[in-house]
């Protein structure tokens, strides 16, 4: 038994004529003048031109939509200029980020009477949060339990805020009891890892070819805020010196590790000290401490209005967006 195609080949069954060549040669033979295109070729050519037209139309449409998107920014029409101005984003509310240092496995300074720095600063922080919220100022804690976030985790809480002030709370092992000192970061400490890398003591930072030229590195996030931090430290130390006799009249500069990675005005407060005979000597400091912080924050707020656009990066630094949002 033959296959159908084999039978066609042998002429048993008149098979379907070849689609292209046979009718074309027949047509050529019948026509008086030779045709330039045969029918199937003509159909394919028309389809080819239709496809070309469709692609061109699509490209034109894409070009037009791109031009429509960019035109209002670069060269707005006069009628658009007279239209209502775009609504400015609402300024971000001030958030005071309070960092009770240590915690968890790291109790901080130990007192001879079992006083633990991590417990004391957590109580101070809660009192400060309550006092600030009573004045309508939002306050958040980097930890609200006996946990020990890393330096960077604590920094991330502050750097995620658009408009923040950072307070790092400590209790010292030394210093005259019932005195309080405020510290801000000195200039030399703001560039610490970069300096070490330049001296060959640390590996150089990895170059990011696609990074924004103005981006600030996380390690030096405090650098553009040094002036603001020092000014806030002066206001705060002034308030504390009024409430705690024997405290220094002016803040000091210290290379406090926690402050270096904060992209906001940031200070450290250190209360003296855990060696007191009775924990109550520290506990009674909580209320005036919180009161001083509230007064300093309210006095500082006019110097630190909410930014409606990213701050202009200083030399060698960058926008806070780089440091925020880990």
């Amino acid at each position, binding site marked *: 038994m033959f296959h159908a195609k084999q039978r066609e080949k042998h002429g048993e069954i008149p098979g379907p004529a070849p689609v292209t060549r046979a009718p074309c040669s027949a047509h050529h033979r019948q026509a008086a003048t030779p045709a330039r295109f045969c029918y199937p070729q003509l159909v394919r050519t028309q389809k080819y031109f239709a496809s070309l037209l469709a692609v061109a139309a699509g490209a034109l449409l894409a070009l037009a939509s791109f031009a429509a998107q960019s035109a209002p920014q670069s060269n707005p029409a006069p009628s658009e200029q007279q239209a209502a101005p775009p609504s400015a984003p609402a300024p971000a509310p001030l958030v005071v980020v309070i960092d009770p240092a240590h915690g968890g496995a790291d109790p901080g300074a130990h007192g001879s009477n079992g006083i633990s720095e991590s417990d004391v600063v957590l109580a101070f922080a809660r009192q400060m949060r309550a006092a600030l919220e009573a004045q309508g100022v939002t306050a958040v804690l980097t930890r609200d339990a006996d946990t020990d976030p890393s330096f960077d985790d604590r920094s991330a809480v502050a750097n995620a805020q658009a408009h923040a002030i950072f307070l790092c709370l400590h209790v010292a092992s030394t210093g005259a009891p019932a005195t309080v000192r405020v510290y801000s970061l000195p200039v*030399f400490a703001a560039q610490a890892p970069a*300096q070490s890398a330049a001296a060959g003591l640390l590996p150089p930072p990895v170059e990011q070819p696609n990074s924004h030229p103005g981006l600030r590195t996380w390690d030096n996030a405090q650098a553009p805020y040094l002036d603001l931090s020092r000014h806030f430290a002066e206001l705060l130390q002034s308030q504390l010196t009024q409430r705690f006799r024997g405290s220094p009249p002016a803040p000091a500069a210290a290379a406090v590790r926690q402050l270096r990675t904060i992209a906001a005005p940031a200070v450290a407060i250190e209360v003296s000290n855990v060696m007191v005979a009775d924990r109550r000597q520290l506990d009674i400091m909580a209320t005036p401490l919180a009161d001083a912080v509230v007064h300093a924050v309210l006095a500082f707020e006019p110097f630190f209005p909410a930014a409606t656009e990213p701050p202009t990066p200083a030399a060698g630094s960058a926008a806070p967006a780089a440091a925020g949002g880990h």
Partner: protein
Amino acid sequence: MSRRWVIAALILGVLVAIGAYELPSLRRHVSRLSSEGPSEAESRRDVVAPQISTPADTQSPAQIFWLAPGTSDTLAPATIQLSLSPDPVLRAKQVLSALIAESPSPAQRTLPADATLLQFYILSDGTAIADFSDELASQTPSGILSEQIAVDSITHTLAANVSSIARLKILIHGQEAETLAGHVDLTGFFPVGISSVTPATSNPQSPAQVSPGLLNQRSPAAPPSKP
């Protein structure tokens, strides 16, 4: 009882009486010797850190910064006679060893007694690297104030006695440490040099006593600029 037993008992009794008489003075003598001897920390340091001396050393006055008497937050220089080398590296080792070992009183100490200076280098650009033993980190009292006092006493002492040092890097047992005892950042450099003193307040303190952190702080600017 025979005569010989009586004589033996008498001799024994005399010996016991003499011993009982001498025992208190013997105790006093032992206690005096123990109090005059080096402490455990000093003995350990003598073994770990041998004396730094060269034939070229000369007896010279050195300014060492310890806590001012009666304070816990103010450094004050004390001038002592030390055998100092003309070589800046050896000289730095000598003054830092004196800073650790020769504190006038325990209350004026700024660095732990058990801490030792393991190595000291000065690079050609004026960068000094001081490598301390683990005790500097583990025994410095925790706190910004105490850690800043420790670092300032080192930088002030170097600045007063070794002129070729511009900045200092502190290592702990050969490694870079993130902090000294949990607070002060050791990842960068500390400026060295009295000339960089710029008090943060409008009431600058006398050069004789320096509060920690006042060095290297810029003069207060009036309204701060927003970054």
